[in-house]
Each structure stands twice: as C-alpha cells, then as structure tokens.
C-alpha cells in the first residue's frame, strides 16, 4: 500500500514536469516560428502569389491577433491536434506515431546490445583493479568514447557495406538491415555504460559483504557475479535514464545515416522541408517519451532496490 503511494507520488511529480516542459516547448516553438518570418509565406512556399499567401493566412487563422493565435494553438495542442502536414497533407501526429515503432524497436535492440557488450566488459574490467589488461581496456574505452557515434556509423558503412559488401546500409529491408543501425546506436552508449559498470564493480568489491562472501569461500567469479554485479547494475539502470536524451539524439543521427524509416528521420526531413506541424508533433512526442522513460526507471528503481523501497519519496 505504502509502495503504491510512493509510486503515485513519483508519477505525479514527473507528470508535473512533463506539463511544464510541454508548455515551454509549445510556447518556444510558437514564438520562434512567428519571429522567424511570416509563417503564411513559409507555408505557401517561395513562389506563391500574394493571394495564395492571404488564403493560407485565413485558412490557418494567422490573420487573428497574436495572443488569440497563441491560445488557439495551446488548445489544439492540448487535444494533440498539430494540424496537417504541409508536405503529405495528413494529420501530423499520425505521421509521427506511425514512425515511432520503428525507432523504438531500433532503440530496444541497441540497448540490449549495449547491455550485452558493456556489462561483461565492465564487470571484467572492474573486478581486476591491478591487471595490465585493465589499463588496455580503459584506454580502448577512452578512445571509443572520443569517437562520435555517427562517425562510427560512417566507418561501419565504409567497412562492412562498401568495402566488403556484407550488409545493407540503407533503409529497413529485412533482418540484415538492422545490423548496422543497431551497432551504430549501441556505439553511442557502450563506452559510457562499460565505464560506469567497471567503476561500480570496483567500488562494490571493496565492500564488507564481498569480504564476507569471500570468507565464506566464494570464488572471485562468484563474488563478482552474485554480489558485486547486482549492485553495479543499479547504477547502470540510472545511467540509462540519465542518458536517454543522449540515446534519442543518437537515434536521430543514426536514422539519418541509414535512411531508417523512424521518427528521427521524419523529424530531420520535416525540418529541411519546413513542415512545422510535423516538427511540433515530433518534438511533443519526444517529450512524452522522455517522461515515460524517466517515470518508468524511477518506478523500476523503487521495485528493484530494497533500500529505496522502504524510503519515503
């Protein structure tokens, strides 16, 4: 009962943050769009006649006073009505939501790969603080961390798609085309996660409960796997929530490199076409995703960490 209350409080706080964020974003975009020129002229296109611009101004209510436009816009956004895409002529929010699945699947695969690669590497590095292999491993992580993810993506294309022609590098056609985008997106987070896991395992190895486990006859492997690693993974979960924004940025670039039909590609295309309704819908959905992940990890923390479970929010 107490636990449910705590979870409710977390969700409430996050929901409040979400509302403030959405309000701020909507306002910022609205006024930036008005400041950057005449939206009607932008909507009509460069070669439009003055009558066409006037028609569009009337159609979108751009002839009303600015405050009226603003509150009308806020009301529409409240009902997830961002208007029609200027490019496709369909409701903008639908175009974004139908692309979301592709992005989320890619993100899920990349996160799984990140965990599969980074957790063993991190545990191995963290469990042997003095070995030379640890120095080599840390140096490798440092260099990898200096490599921007999109450059990793380009290098992967050059090597695996262009030189050796092993894998497709464009679009989503069949299982093989998932390989390169997944690897690229994973490369954004693997070095960070491996370092956090390594640091946490090293720290946990110094704790009393490890000494107790050793005294009871646990081998190093047992001590790491059964006692140090579960502790370290808690920090790893926190990393995923704090780095989710970074992962989303990475997904946008990755989708652009690989022409991946996700919502990041749609966002960049819409920005290049100045298709503002779709841009607003995409930014709005991004905020929703950020909220869902942060609230989700907060709750998850409560459920998996016995120390937090009994604490007050």
């Amino acid at each position: 009962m107490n636990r449910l209350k705590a979870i409710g409080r977390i969700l409430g706080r996050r929901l409040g943050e979400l509302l403030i964020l959405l309000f701020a974003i909507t306002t910022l975009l609205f006024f930036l769009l008005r400041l950057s020129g005449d939206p009607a002229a932008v909507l009509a296109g460069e070669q439009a006649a003055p009558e066409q611009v006037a028609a569009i101004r009337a159609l979108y209510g751009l002839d009303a006073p600015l405050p009226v436009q603003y509150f009308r816009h806020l009301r529409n956004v409240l009902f997830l009505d961002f208007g029609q895409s200027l490019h496709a002529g369909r409701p903008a929010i639908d175009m974004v939501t139908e692309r979301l699945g592709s992005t989320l699947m890619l993100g899920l695969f990349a996160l799984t790969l990140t965990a599969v690669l980074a957790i063993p590497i991190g545990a191995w590095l963290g469990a042997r603080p003095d070995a030379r292999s640890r120095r080599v491993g840390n140096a490798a992580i440092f260099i990898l961390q200096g490599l921007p993810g999109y450059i990793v993506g380009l290098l992967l294309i050059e090597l695996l798609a262009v030189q050796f022609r092993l894998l497709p590098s464009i679009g989503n056609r069949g299982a093989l085309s998932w390989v390169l985008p997944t690897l690229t997106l994973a490369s954004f987070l693997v070095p960070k996660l491996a370092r956090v896991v390594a640091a946490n395992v090293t720290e946990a190895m110094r704790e009393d409960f490890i000494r107790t486990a050793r005294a009871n006859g646990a081998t190093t492997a047992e001590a790491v796997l059964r006692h140090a690693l579960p502790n370290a993974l808690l920090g790893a979960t926190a990393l995923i929530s704090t780095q989710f924004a970074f992962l989303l940025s990475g997904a946008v670039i990755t989708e652009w490199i690989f022409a991946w039909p996700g919502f990041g590609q749609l966002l960049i295309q819409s920005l290049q076409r100045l298709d503002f309704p779709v841009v607003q819908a995409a930014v709005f959905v991004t905020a929703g995703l950020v909220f869902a992940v942060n609230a989700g990890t907060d709750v998850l923390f409560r459920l998996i960490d016995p120390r937090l479970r009994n604490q007050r929010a």
Partner: protein
Amino acid sequence: MSVDQAQTSPGRLGTWATKFGGNWMLGLGLAIGLLLSLGALAALLMPLPEAFSGSLMTRFKAPLSPGYFLGSDQLGRSVLARLAVGMPWSLGIALTASIIAVGVGTAAGLTAAARPGLTRRVIQHFLDTVIAFPALIIAVTVIALVGRGFFPLAVTLGLATWPISARVIYAEGLSVMRREYVVAADLLGVGLARSVLVHVLPAVRPTLLVMFAFTFADMLIAESALSFLGLGVPLTATSWGNMLSESRQYLIEAPWLMLAPAGMIVLAAVAFNLIGDGIALRSRGRSRSAG
C-alpha cells in the same frame, strides 16, 4: 562531498590516467589544440585557392598524389586545403558555443549554490527538466527556424547545452560555499554577490577550465553532427561536418573524403578531452598535496 570528488566527477579517463600521471595528457592535448588553433588562424589569413576551385582533371585524386596530400574531392578541390578552410568554422563555433554554455552555466550554477530556497529549487528543477530532453532535437529545431550561420549555430548550441555545465558548477560551488573562509566572509558582513565573485569563483576555476575543455569537445562534435544533418553551417560554407555530409555520396570511389574530416573531428575532440582530463588530474593532485 569533498572538493576532490566534485573535481573528479567530470574526469573521463579515471584510474587509467593516474598510472601515467596527468601532465603528458595535458601536454599532448594542448600541443594538438595549439596546432589546430594556429592552423585555423593561418587558414583565415592565407588565400587557399585549392580549397575552392578545381577542375575535372584533378577530380578524385587519391591521397598522397603530388600536390594533393589528402587527395581531392568530386570537384577536384584539395581535401587538405578544405580541412584548413573548415577549421575557423568548426573551431570558432565550438569556441563561441562553449563560452556561452560555460558562462551561462556558471552564472546559473553559482546563483543556485549561493541562494538556497526558492531560487535554488527553481533552477534545479529547470536543469533536471532540460537535461532530460535531447539537446540535439532542440538545436536542430531552433536552427531550422532561426536560420543557419555562424552565430545562430554557436548561440543555439551554447543555449541548448549550458545546463550540463550549470549542474557541475553548482555542485562544486555548493561545496565551496560551505568552506570556512566563505562562511567567515559572510559572518564579517561581506555581501553575497561580492563573496561569490571574490571567494567562490576563483575556487571553482579548475572545474570551470575542465568543463570548458569537455564542452569544447562536445560542441565540436555537435556542430559537425548538425552540419552532417544538413542543419548546421550554411550549405555553401566549408566545415568539417559539411565535408562529411557531402562525402556520403562518394563512399565507394573516394573513401578519403569521409575519413579525412572524420579523422580531424576525432583528433580535435580527443585533444580537448585530454586537456580536460589533464587539468582535472593536475588540480586534484594539487589539492591532495595541499590537504
């Protein structure tokens, strides 16, 4: 929290570096950074016609051909000269954006550290909310609306990323505010603003420098990423990101068009990460030997 801890937190190398000592990292990083800055200055002063005009005769020369050390591109222009011409763009934007990000971040972070209560809570809440949102998505959207160019890009990048500096400076400033000499100044009636400027700001200087170096590396990567997405510097300008973006069409016949700017971006980013780590290690060593 001790000062040490706050200063180590931005460190990106961890224990590996302590085995070697911090100075070679600082030295190597500064050497590369200095070379790049000189190169950028030279590129601003020298006319480099090879960067702008070429002919079909000089198209797609492989690296190490005579006159084209790093090869030539689809229009027969020298890749090396174009890298040089791109330097002022890439480094200049990163520099301006870092000054804005660290400047605003310091102001906000120290304000939050100096003023407990509502001000601090509002700033903290704001930072938490903004940091959770993908900075790249904010930046590309704003750029698309306000237009491309040196200053729009630099200002947008700076304003999209200052919360990260603010959070680090806040943590550091908070620990300095609790030191005895700052508390003593307060008791002696030194005003808060003066106390922050005279006592706290100098004490957080190493952290400022570290944050500046890391931010510079991140901004360099961000600028090239935005240009790569076609939403950075003007399409006609020569920047490393634009070169990368163009190179995608010629991956088969001319991979060096991608590898050369990619190498420069990585080199510059690693150099500034080295500088940041070097400063962090040095100041940590100093405060350790002092206390």
